[in-house]
C-alpha cells in the first residue's frame, strides 16, 4: 500500500510550477498601466493619466498614438492642459493633478477620404486606450502582492479545510471515511506553503511595502476615525499575536494528527484513537473561533471600514469546499494509478455529496450576506457590493452563478455523484470558481477599478497549484495509504450503500 510519487507526477507538478513561474514573471513585467480616454464628441477626446511616467515615456506614447491614428486616416492635434484649477473643478475628490491631460482634436488627413463612411475617430482612440494598446508598461508590485495574498489564502484554505474535515471525522467517530484519511492528512501537511506566503504578505505589509492592509499604517489610523475606533483590535501587536496563535495551532494539530496516526499504525489498540477523538473535539472548538477571526484579519480587514457578521462563515464554507474538491481530485488521481483499491464508489459518492452540500452552504451564505446588505441599503455596507458590481460585474456574477448552478444541476443526481468524468469536470470548474471567489474577496479592496486578469494571475495560480500538489503527493508517500489499525478500518472497508 505504500505510495511513492512517480517520476511522471513529479515532472508534471514541478513542470507546472516552473511554467507558472515563467508565466508569472512574463506577466509581472508586461503589466499595463492604463490611460483613461473619454469621448467628448466626434472630433475631440480627453485622455488622462494618473500613474507614474517620465517625459520620454509620455512622448513615446504620444508618438505611438499619432501613428496608430495616422493609419486610420486621422491627424491629431494635442492641447495639453496643466492647469490645477481647471482640473479641480472636474474632479472634486482628487487633490493632485494628473500626470498628463490631453485634449485631442481630430481632423481627417488629406486625401484619405475616411470620413465618408461614418468612422468615429474619437471612439477609435477610446478603444485603443481601453484595449491597452495605448498604455504604459509598469511592473508595479501592487498586483503582485494582491495575487500573493489570493493564492496564499486559497491554498492555505485548502489545507485548513482538509485538516478541519480530518478533525471532524475523529470527533464524530465516523467510520466510513477511514480509507480516505491519509489523503486528508497529506493535504493538511501542505499547509506551510500557504502559511509562509501569507506571513510574507503580512510582513511586507507591516513594513509598508504595500498598502493592502491600510490599518497597518499609523498615518491612516491618525487620519481616519473609523480605523482609529477599531485600533483596539486592528493593531500590529495584537494582529501578530493572533497570526502566531492561528498558525501555531493549525500547524500543531496537523502534525499531531499525523504523528498520532503513524503511532497507531505501529502500536494498534484504541487508546490512541480516543486520544485523537478528544483532541479533535478541542481542535473543532478552536477552529470555530479562529476560522472566523482569521477571515476578518486576513481578508475582511482589507476593506477596513466594512464589516459583515456572516463573513467568517462564508469564507469557511469556501475553504471547506475547496478542501473537499482537492481531496476527491487526489483520490481520483491515486485510483487511476492503481492505488487506494479499497476506496469504492460509495466512498466517492459520499465525498461528492459533501461537494454538493457545501456548494449549497457556500451559495446560501454568499446570498444571505448579499441579500441582507442589499435589503437594508446602508451606504457603508453597500460599498462592498458597489465596488464589486461596478467594476467586476460579469466576473462576479458568473463566478456565483457557476459555483451555485453547476453543482445544483448536476450533482443532484445519484449516478452523477458516482461518475468520475462528471466529478472531475464540475470539480475543476468549481475549484477555479472558488479561486475567483477569493480573487473577488481581495482584488476590489486592493486594486479597486485598476484590476486586470492576465498572465500574472494565471501564472501564479499555476505555480501554486503545481507546488501544492507536489507537496501533497510527496507527503502521501511518507506514510502507508491505509490506516490499518484504525478501529473503524474494517467498517470503512465494507462501506456500501
Amino acid at each position: 500500500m505504500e505510495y511513492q510519487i512517480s517520476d511522471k507526477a513529479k515532472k508534471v507538478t514541478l513542470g507546472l510550477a516552473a511554467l507558472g513561474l515563467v508565466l508569472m514573471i512574463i506577466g509581472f513585467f508586461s503589466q499595463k498601466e492604463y490611460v483613461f480616454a473619454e469621448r467628448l464628441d466626434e472630433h475631440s477626446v480627453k485622455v488622462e493619466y494618473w500613474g507614474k511616467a517620465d517625459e520620454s515615456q509620455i512622448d513615446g506614447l504620444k508618438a505611438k498614438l499619432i501613428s496608430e491614428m495616422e493609419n486610420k486616416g486621422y491627424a491629431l492635434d494635442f492641447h495639453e492642459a496643466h492647469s490645477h484649477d481647471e482640473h479641480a473643478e472636474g474632479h472634486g475628490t482628487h487633490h493632485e493633478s494628473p500626470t498628463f491631460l490631453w485634449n485631442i482634436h481630430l481632423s481627417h488627413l488629406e486625401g484619405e477620404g475616411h470620413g465618408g463612411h461614418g468612422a468615429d475617430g474619437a471612439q477609435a482612440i477610446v478603444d485603443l486606450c481601453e484595449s491597452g494598446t495605448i498604455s504604459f508598461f509598469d511592473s508595479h508590485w501592487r498586483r503582485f502582492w494582491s495575487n500573493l495574498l489570493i493564492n496564499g489564502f486559497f491554498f492555505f484554505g485548502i489545507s485548513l479545510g482538509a485538516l478541519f474535515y480530518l478533525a471532524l471525522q475523529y470527533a464524530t467517530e465516523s467510520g466510513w471515511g477511514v480509507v480516505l484519511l491519509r489523503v486528508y492528512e497529506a493535504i493538511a501537511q501542505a499547509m506551510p506553503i500557504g502559511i509562509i506566503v501569507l506571513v510574507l504578505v503580512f510582513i511586507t505589509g507591516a513594513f509598508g511595502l504595500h498598502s493592502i492592509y491600510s490599518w497597518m499604517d499609523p498615518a491612516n489610523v491618525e487620519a481616519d476615525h473609523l480605523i482609529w475606533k477599531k485600533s483596539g483590535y486592528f493593531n500590529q501587536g495584537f494582529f501578530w499575536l493572533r497570526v502566531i496563535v492561528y498558525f501555531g495551532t493549525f500547524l500543531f494539530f496537523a502534525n499531531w494528527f499525523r504523528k498520532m496516526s503513524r503511532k497507531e499504525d505501529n502500536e494498534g489498540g484504541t487508546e490512541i484513537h480516543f486520544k485523537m477523538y478528544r483532541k479533535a473535539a478541542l481542535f473543532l472548538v478552536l477552529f470555530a473561533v479562529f476560522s472566523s477571526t482569521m477571515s476578518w484579519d486576513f481578508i475582511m480587514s482589507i476593506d477596513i471600514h466594512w464589516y459583515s457578521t456572516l463573513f467568517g462563515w462564508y469564507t469557511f464554507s469556501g475553504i471547506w469546499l475547496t478542501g473537499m474538491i482537492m481531496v476527491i481530485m487526489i483520490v481520483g488521481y491515486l485510483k487511476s494509478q492503481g492505488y487506494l483499491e479499497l476506496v469504492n464508489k460509495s466512498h466517492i459518492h459520499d465525498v461528492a455529496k459533501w461537494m454538493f452540500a457545501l456548494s449549497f452552504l457556500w451559495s446560501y451564505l454568499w446570498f444571505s450576506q448579499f441579500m441582507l446588505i442589499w435589503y437594508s441599503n446602508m451606504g457603508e455596507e453597500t460599498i462592498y457590493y458597489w465596488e464589486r458590481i461596478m467594476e467586476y460585474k460579469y466576473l462576479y456574477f458568473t463566478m456565483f452563478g457557476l459555483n451555485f448552478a453547476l453543482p445544483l444541476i448536476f450533482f443532484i443526481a445519484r449516478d452523477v455523484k458516482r461518475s468520475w468524468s462528471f466529478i472531475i469536470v464540475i470539480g475543476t470548474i468549481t475549484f477555479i470558481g472558488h479561486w475567483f471567489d477569493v480573487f473577488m474577496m481581495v482584488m476590489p479592496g486592493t486594486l479597486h477599478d485598476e484590476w486586470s486578469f492576465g498572465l500574472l494571475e494565471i501564472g501564479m495560480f499555476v505555480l501554486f497549484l503545481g507546488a501544492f500538489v507536489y507537496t501533497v503527493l510527496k507527503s502521501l508517500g511518507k506514510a502507508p495509504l491505509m490506516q490499518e489499525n484504525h478501529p473503524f478500518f474494517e467498517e470503512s472497508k465494507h462501506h456500501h450503500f
Partner: protein
Amino acid sequence: MADKVIYAMYDDDDETKDAAQKMVDKGIHIADVFSPFPIHGIDPIIGIKETRLGIVSFMFAITGTMLAMITIRYMMFVDWNMNIGGKPNFAFLENMPSFIPIMFEFTVLCAAHGMAFTYFVRNGLFPGMPAHNPDPRTTDDRFVVEIRPEDNNQFSFEELSAFVKTTPIVEIEEKVIQ
C-alpha cells in the same frame, strides 16, 4: 388453487441482505422485503425499480416556486404597491432578492408535503387502514423476506422452502393467501 407464500424471518439487516443475495444468485425471485428501517443496498439485489418520488418532489417544488412568485407579485405589486427596502421601483424582478427566502421556503413546504402525501396515497396509508406487513414484528426488530411460489415456477414449493432454510433464518412461515 389458493396461492401460497413463504415468509422467511431474520433478525439482522446484514444477514437479510446476504440471504437475499444468495437466493437471487440461485435464481429465486423475491417478492418483497419487510424491514423496520431502510436496508442500504438491498434495492438493487431484489430488483426494486428506482423510485419516482424524486420526480414528484421536483414537480411539487416547481409548483411551490410558481405559487410563491404569483402570490408575491399579486400582493406586493398588483393589488397594493409596496415600497420594499427603500427601493420604490415597484417591479417584481428588481426586488427579487428580498423574496428569495420566501420562495425557497414555499418550495420546500410544497415539495415536502406533496412528497409525503404522494407517498401515503401510493402506499394506501390512511388512518384506520389494515396493516400490509405479514408480521407486526417487522416494525420492531425483525426482517422478513417474502417469496411467492408463483413467481418461481422453476422450483417446487418444497425446494424453495428447503433452500430458504439453508439461510440463517430465525423463523419460517408458509401461508396460504386468498
